[in-house]
């Protein structure tokens, strides 16, 4: 598998990363060498083997339906670059 420069730029845009033409060119090389390396896994025959979801056999932990958290809006927004009355403020996004 190999990806071209346009794919690199598209993936970067989806991840909201800004990359220059030169960076895209060099990232293309880096990403392709990573993909080629991972490609080695295709040599393993996994027919009839279920995807591994955990290294230990355990059941998913579940919570009871009880309110145990929240009511600290001031802390929630305390790292925000801008906030007002415990709302996050972000550059205007509207259709």
């Amino acid at each position, binding site marked *: 598998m190999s990806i071209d420069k346009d794919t690199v730029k598209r993936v970067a845009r989806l991840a909201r990363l800004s990359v220059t033409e030169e960076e895209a060119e060099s990232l293309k090389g880096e990403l392709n060498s990573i993909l080629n390396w991972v490609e080695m896994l295709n040599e393993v025959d996994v027919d009839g083997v279920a995807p591994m979801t955990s290294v230990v056999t355990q059941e998913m*932990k579940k919570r009871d339906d009880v309110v145990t958290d929240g009511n600290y809006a001031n802390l929630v927004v305390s790292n925000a670059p801008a906030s007002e009355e415990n709302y996050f403020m972000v550059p205007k996004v509207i259709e």
Partner: protein
Amino acid sequence: MAEASSKLIKGATGDWEVVIGMEIHAQVASEAKLFSGSSTKFGGEANAHVSFVDAAMPGMLPVINEECVRQAIRTGLGLKAKINNRSLFDRKNYFYPDLPQGYQISQYKDPIVGEGEVVLYMLDGEEVRIGVERLHLEQDAGKSMHDQHPTMSFVDLNRSGVALMEIVSKPDIRSSEEAKAYMTKMRTIVRYLGTSDGNMEEGSMRADVNVSVRRPGDPLGTRCELKNMNSIRFIGQAIEYEARRQIGILEDGGSIDQETRLYDPKKGETRSMRSKEEAHDYRYFPDPDLLPLEFDDAYVEELRKDLPELPDDKRDRFISDLGLKPYDASVLVASKRLAAFFEKVATGRDAQLAANWVINEWLGRINKESLDIDQSPVSADQLGAIIDLIKAGDISGKIAKDLFEIVWTEGGDPAKIVEEKGMKQVTDTGAIEAIIDEIIAKNPDQVEKVKEKPSLIGWFVGQVMKASQGKANPQAVNQILKDKLGL
């Protein structure tokens, strides 16, 4: 039957068929969120019902709320659907300020509930079966407000992480009427089950509606998605508009662009939301923070055992055990509380008579005054007592309506009111005969005329009822009049 063709839309160049599929989002009824311990309560101060998990602070891990799992299974059982004992959670990646994780935890390839079916009983008596493709659990996003500041949007994460069930239908819906009926039925089902409050005004139930048109028998056309519909009436209006818009384009030789559109209820039209189109690339992958969700059949059976009677089963019972007309049964089971009210009125009484009174008089009045069923000034016992008085022949149907009015506005025991106000029907033939004799004596002209024209007997009946203040038994009046006038 004309039903198949009546659903088609007439265009300038012939008939068109509209094809609709719906994705309904219903908020799961639970105290806490899907993957955190903060509250799901509607409203509240900004960001008050938010934990560090919901705000996606680094290092926070999701732990599933088991009640949400149970609610999803219950809903699946209510949709007669396949329950999947093993399902997976995936990340659906996109950027938006009200989505702090940068992804929504959802279920993609392996949902908790598979195929099911919903039956619609249409007003004209037709039964329509709509396939359900799947139901999966996912997180709701936060809420952005754009009108608080000139250059900034405000974000409140109280909704962030609340559990939603997304219920996806097959493209089996063929008219706006069916789409409305499907949404209504889905809301009835989740309300019966108690798995969602189905409150569309508060946004706890909403739908994305996929609409396309085609010539009957042709393959599916290109669809447009009408986003975020939160009113059953608007769903109907939006589909009507959208289908005609698409037909107009196709008949003019154009083609439909697959896109997301919004319905504007004020203008009664749909418009494109083009900006969202560019990057529908969600790059789903299994969420590494969550193990597969697994349970055994016994777990499902335990939940099945405790399910309440569902609307379709109740409808069948009303028809087969109580002998109700199918239409009336459908009306009565539309809400669990309405059905319970009816059953209380009908117990030990003529069920069809009870249904007529509950639907025509009582429910009609409730709707006219925009009351909630619980706010009715007439209780099931009072309505039952009115019906008993009719059955016993104490009052006529017409007087019963007056009595209902009195009980509605003033309250009281119907039997006592009838006694006190002298509303009892006169079945004493002697008394009725006396009235009739007097009227015949006073109106010799009419007596002559009625012999020529027997339909004039109605005039006499009217006079008798007037003289008796509506209390004379109509059957008795008719019979005696016929005898005396020699008709």
